[in-house]
C-alpha cells in the first residue's frame, strides 16, 4: 500500500526537472541512450562472487579508452549478447519495445558478468502513442519486462516492472532502468522516472514522443566483515578507556555545595542580624511604626531609662 499526499513544492520539482534536462540535453538521438558500465572489474577481488558495480555513465565519449584497457587485459572470452525489452500498456499483451546489448565477460573462476550495457529503444508507433495517451488519461500502469536470464531468454520467467504512466512525461518521456544482476541472471529491474512522482499525478501529454533512457547495472555488494579484534587492539581500546573523563569539581560535588552554600548564607545572615541588631533595632521599629508617631518612641525612651 502506498501513501500519497497531495501537495508538492513546485520549486523543487522544477529544479529536478531542469537538472535532468540540462544533463541530457546533449543527447542527439531521440530515443536512444547509451549507458556504460565502467570497467572496474580489473580491480575486482579474485574469488569474489560478484564485483561491485553501479556506475551510471551518461556520456558516449568515454568508452574507447576503457575498451582498450579491457582488451589489453586479454579478455578474449568476452562475447556480445542482446536481450529484448518488451512493454505493455495497462493489461495489454507485451510487445517488443527495444533491446539491450552488452558484453558478456567470463572470469577465470567461471563466473560471468555483463559489462558495457547499451540500450536502444524502438520508436513509438501511432497506436502505441494512442495507447499511451489512454494510460495517461486513466492513470494506469505502463509495464515493461525483460528475460530473467540473458543467455537463454526468457529464463525461468520474465522480470516485470511497471510504473504509473503519468510519472514518465517530462519534456519527452524520461525513464530510468536499474538492472540488478546476479551473474547472467537478472534479479529485478527497477523501472521508473528519474525524478519524483508525487501522488495526485498531473495529467500531462509529453511534447516529444520519444524516450530518454538511463540505464544502470547493479550487482550485489559484499557485506562488511565482522570486525575481529586482536588482543592488542582490545588492550589499547581498554587502555584508551581507562582514564575516566575528568569532571570539574563543581560537577562532582554540586549536590553538597548547594546546601553548604545555603547554610553558610544562612549563617552569614544570622551573624549579620546578630551584629546589627543592637543598632538596628530602633530604626527598624521606627520605620515599621512610623504611623504610630513619636508618642510611642517616647514611651520606649522612657522605658529605657
Amino acid at each position, binding site marked *: *500500500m*502506498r*501513501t500519497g*499526499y*497531495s*501537495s*508538492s*513544492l513546485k520549486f*523543487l520539482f522544477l529544479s529536478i526537472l531542469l537538472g535532468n534536462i540540462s544533463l541530457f540535453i546533449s543527447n542527439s538521438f531521440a530515443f536512444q541512450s547509451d549507458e556504460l558500465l565502467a570497467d572496474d572489474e580489473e580491480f575486482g577481488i579474485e574469488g569474489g*562472487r*560478484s564485483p561491485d558495480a553501479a556506475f551510471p555513465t551518461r556520456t558516449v565519449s568515454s568508452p574507447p579508452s576503457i575498451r582498450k584497457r579491457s582488451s589489453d587485459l586479454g579478455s578474449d572470452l568476452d562475447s556480445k549478447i542482446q536481450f529484448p525489452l518488451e512493454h505493455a500498456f495497462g*493489461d495489454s499483451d507485451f510487445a517488443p519495445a527495444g533491446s539491450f546489448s552488452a558484453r558478456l565477460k567470463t572470469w577465470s573462476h567461471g563466473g560471468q558478468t555483463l559489462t558495457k550495457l547499451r540500450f536502444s529503444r524502438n520508436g513509438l508507433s501511432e497506436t502505441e502513442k494512442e495507447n499511451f495517451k489512454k494510460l495517461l488519461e486513466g492513470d494506469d*500502469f505502463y509495464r515493461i519486462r525483460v528475460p*530473467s*536470464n540473458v543467455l537463454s531468454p526468457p529464463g*525461468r*520467467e*520474465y*522480470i*516485470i*516492472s*511497471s*510504473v504509473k504512466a503519468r510519472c514518465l512525461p517530462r519534456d519527452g518521456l524520461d525513464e*530510468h532502468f*536499474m538492472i540488478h544482476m*546476479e*551473474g547472467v*541472471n537478472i*534479479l*529485478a529491474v*527497477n523501472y*521508473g*522516472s*528519474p*525524478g*519524483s*512522482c*508525487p*501522488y495526485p499525478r498531473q495529467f500531462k501529454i509529453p511534447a516529444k514522443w520519444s524516450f530518454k533512457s538511463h540505464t544502470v547495472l*547493479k550487482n*550485489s*555488494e*559484499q*557485506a*562488511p566483515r*565482522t570486525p*575481529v*579484534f586482536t588482543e592488542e*587492539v582490545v588492550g589499547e*581500546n581498554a587502555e*584508551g*578507556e581507562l582514564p575516566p573523563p575528568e569532571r570539574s569539581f563543581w560537577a562532582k560535588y554540586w*549536590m553538597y555545595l548547594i*546546601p553548604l552554600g545555603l*547554610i553558610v548564607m*544562612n549563617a552569614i545572615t*544570622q551573624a549579620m542580624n546578630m551584629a546589627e*541588631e543592637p543598632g538596628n*533595632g530602633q530604626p527598624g*521599629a521606627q520605620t515599621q511604626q512610623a504611623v504610630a508617631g513619636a508618642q510611642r518612641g517616647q514611651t520606649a525612651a522612657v522605658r529605657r531609662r
Partner: protein
Amino acid sequence: MNMAIRVFLLVLIIFSSICPALCIYEDQVGHMDWHQQYIGKVKHAVFHTQKAARKRVIVSTEENVVASLDLRRGEIFWRHVLGPNDVIDAIDIALGKYVITLSSGGTILRSWNLPDGQMMWESILSGATPSNSLLSIPANLKIGKDDVVFVYGSGCLYAVASIDGEVIWKKELTSEGGNIQQLIYPDGTDIIYAVVLVGLAQFDAYQINVKTGELLKHSSMVFPAGFSGDLSFITSDIAVTLDTTGSVLVAVHFQGGAISFHQTHVSELDRDFSGAAVMLPTKLPGMFALEINKSIVFIKVTNEGKLEVVDTFGRSTAVTESLYLSEGQQAFGLVQQGDGEIILTVKRGDDWKSNLLQETIQMDYQRGIAHKVFVNTYARTDRSNGFRVLIVMEDHSLFLLQQGEIVWSREDGLASVTDVIASELPVEKDGVSVAKVEHNLFEWLKGHLLKLKGTLMIATPDDIAAIQKMRLQSSEKSKMTRDHNGFRKLLIVLTRAGKLFALHTGDGRIMWSLLLDSLRKSETCQNPRGLSLHQWQDPHHHVLDENPSVLVVGRCDHSTDSPGVLSIVDTYTGQERNRMGPAHSITRVIPLPFTDSVEQRLHLLLDVNLQARLYPRTTEALDIFLRELGNIYWYSADVDKGILKGHAVQKNCILEIADSYCFNTRDLWSIVLPSESEKIIATVTRDLNEAVHTQAKVTSDQEVMYKYISKNLLFLATVSPKAVGPTGSVTPEESWLVVYVIDTVTGRILHHMTHHGSQGPVQAVFSENWVVYHYFNLKAHRYEMSVIEIYDQSRLDNKDILKLLLGKHNLTSPITAYSRPEVITKSQSYFFTHSVKTLAVTSTAKGITSKQLLLGTIGDQVLALDKRFLDPRRTINPTQAEKEEGIIPLTDSLPIIPQSYVTHALKVEGLRGITTVPAKLESTTLVFAYGVDLFFTRLAPSRTYDSLTEDFSYALLLITIVGLVIAIFVTWVWSEKKELQEKWR
C-alpha cells in the same frame, strides 16, 4: 527560616537515600510479570498409584512434553520439553521407578527417574527403514539379570535392558519397514510374537526367542483385497481389520504360525450400512469398535469367532484402554457427550450389560467433546473398586474426575498459542464502579505504614512478607477496567485447538474463553485450524459504546487451497458476533489502513486464484475501498520458486454469481531469484502499527540524517540451495547468505548485500528504518547479528535553518514510492554467542523511547539487548562528541548482560514467539512471550522516566509535606516570638 532549611535538608537526605528502582529486585519478581506453565494436549497417560506416597500420572503430550503430574491437585512435579522434532511415540513405566519414553520415530529411547525426573539413560536405536514404533514392557520377564523393554522402530525389534539402556539383542524383521501392530508376550513363555503389516496387504507373524532374539518362526500371508490400516487385537491370536474399501471386516487368526482370514461384510452386522466403516484404535477385551454412519458400533467377537453387535453410541464417544482389576478381570471406561455434561461409564470387559460405575458430570460447553480418556482404579474404603478418569477435552484441557466430581483441571490448550493480539479493557464508567471500595481508613494507613517501614528498611521479615502479599493482592493491577497507564489490557490468544482465550495482563487469569464453532471439526470442515487474529474493530473516537472485536481467520485443511473460515468475536464479552464460511480459500489477510464509520477495519483477503475479497461486506466499506483502489499494493513471495511478485487490485472478478466485493488482481513487478544460487529462507516486514516519533536523527557533529521510513519495506534473506540444510552441512565456500531490502510497491531493490560463508537459519526483525538479522557465520564458526540502517539522502538539503523558517523545505512534500529514492545504507556485523529462536523489538506508544531487541534464546529465555549495540555508526574509538551522543565503542561481539534477561530466572519452555504491545505510558512496553509456557512482563527500555515507581510511598511524601508545613509554621511562630523579644529587649 533557618529551621525550615534544616528540615528541608533532612528531607533531602531522606529522599536521596531512597534507592531508585533501576532494575528488578528479588522481591519484585512476580510483581509486574507472570509466568504460567503448561504441558499441551495429552497423548498418553500412565498412572502411577501403586505403592506410592505421592500419587502421580505420567503424561506425554503433542507439544513433546513428558511430565509427571500430581494426581491430587494437577500440579507439575517435573516436566521435560523435548525438541520440536522429537515427537514422543510412547511412554511407560519400567521397574516401577523409571519412566521410559520412545521418541523420534522409535529411534530414541530414554529413561527418567520417576520421583524427580532426572534422566537415567538414553539409547539411540538407529535403523535404516522408517516405520511406526512400539514400546512394550512385559511385567515379569528377565533376560539374565536384566528386566527388559521391547522396542520396535525402523523395522527392527530391540530388547533393551531397562536398568541401563543396554541393547541386549536386535532383530531386523522387515527390510521394507513394515508397520508393527502388536507385540504379544504370553506370560511365562520364552516366545514373543510380533505382528507386522508390510505394505497394505501382507500380514506377517513372527515368533522370536525372548532370550536371544532368534527368529523361531515366520509366517506370512498376503490378503489380496488389501487392509485399510490398523488392526484391533481381540485376543492374543485374533485380530480384526477392514479391507481397503472399508466395507468388509477381516478377522485374522494367527495361532501357532498358521494365518487364516475370515471375511464378514459390514452390512451383515448393520443393515443400514453404506459408505465406508473406520476401525477405531481400541484395546478392549474380546471386542472392537467401528465407526459406521457417524456412530460408534461396538462389536464382540465370540469364542466361535462370530461377530456380534453389542451397542451403538453417538460419534462423540471416547473409550479408554482396558484396565486390569485385581481379580483378573478387565474393565474399561466410556465417556459420552451430553448437553452441557458428560456421562462417564465404567464397564466390565466380560459383561456389557452391567456398569461398574455411571456418573454424570457437568462440563462447560466451551470445552467441546472428550477426545481421550484414561482410566485408573483404586481401592475404596469399603475395598471395592473405585475409578478415577483423566479426560482430555476438545480444547486440549485436562480433567481428573473422581466420585462424580472434577478434582482438578488444567488449561493446557494455552500451551499451543498460535497468535496473539492485545485488546483494550472497557473504560471505567461513573455508574459502574468495578473497583472494590478500599477497606477502611485504618487499614489503608496500616498498609502505608508497612510500606514506609519497608522503604526505611526497618521492616521485620514478617512485615516484608505482608508487604509482598499486599503488592500481589493489590486489586489495582487486576481490575477489569482500563487504567491510566495502559498496563491493563486483554491478551486475546488463539490456540491450536481453535479456542480463543482472553488473558488479563495483570495476573494472567482467563477472563473468558470461546471454542469457536467455525474452527471445530464438522461435515464441511474436516480438519480445521486457526491461522491468525486481526483487529477487526478498535473503537476509540466517536463510537466508544461499541465493543472492540477481533477477526479470527481459519482454514479447513492444511493445504492453502482449502476453504477458509472467518469469525468475528467481541473481546469484552467473548461472544461470537458473526461467522462466515467455509468459503473461498485464504492465503493472506491484508488489513487496510481504512476504517468505516463504526471503526471496522477494512480487510482484503486473498485466495489461491489471486482474487482479492473485501471485508466487511458493506456498501460503505466498498465506497471507501473504491476511492483508495489505486493506492493499494501488496506483494507475494513464492518460496518454492524463488519469485517475488507485486500486485495491485484491478477490477471486479468475473464469477458465476456477481460479487461486487471480489476483485481481480494484476502483477506489477516481479523479482526472479536464480534458482541455482538462491533460495528464500526469510521474509520480514515492518509492523504496520509501529509509531515512529521522528524522521530525523541528529548526529554528534550537528548533522541531520533522515531515516528512510516506509511501511512498504520488505527484508528478504536467501541462501545458496546447498546451505538450506542444518548448520555444518556445507563448506563455507559453497554457502552464502544474500539479503535484500525491497520496496514492495514498485519492486525496487534498495539494498542488496552478500554475506559469504554464512548460513541460516535467519531470524530478523524490521523496525523504523533498520533491520537486524541473526545467522551463522561458517568461516568464524560463530553466530552473527547484522544491522542495516537505511537513510534518505533526498532530504539531506533540509539542514538549512533559514530554509526551514522560510518554508523552503521538502519535509512536508508527499512521499511516493514512484520517485527514485536516494537512499544510503549503513551496515555492521557483530558476533553473538547464542543461537536465537525468535526476534522481536519493543514498541512504545509514540516511538520516543529507545528500542530494545528481544531475543528468544535457545535456552528458552528472553534477552533484552539495547539497539545501541547494533548501531552501524559504532567505531573502535568514538570521538568525544560521538560518545556524548551515546555511541558505544565498537566491539566484535555483542555483550550478554545477565541482568538483562527479561525472564530473569524463569524459562518459557518451547518458546515460539514474542509479542510486544505498547502501553499508554510512553516509557513502557508490554512483552508477552509464548511457547509451551506463557510469560508476560512490562519493560521500560529507557527506564520509567515518565512515572514514579509503583512502590513509591505517597504516605511518606504526604507526611513530609505535612511535616514541612508544620515546621514552617513552628519556625514562623518561633521567629515571630524571637523578633518580639528582640523588640522588647
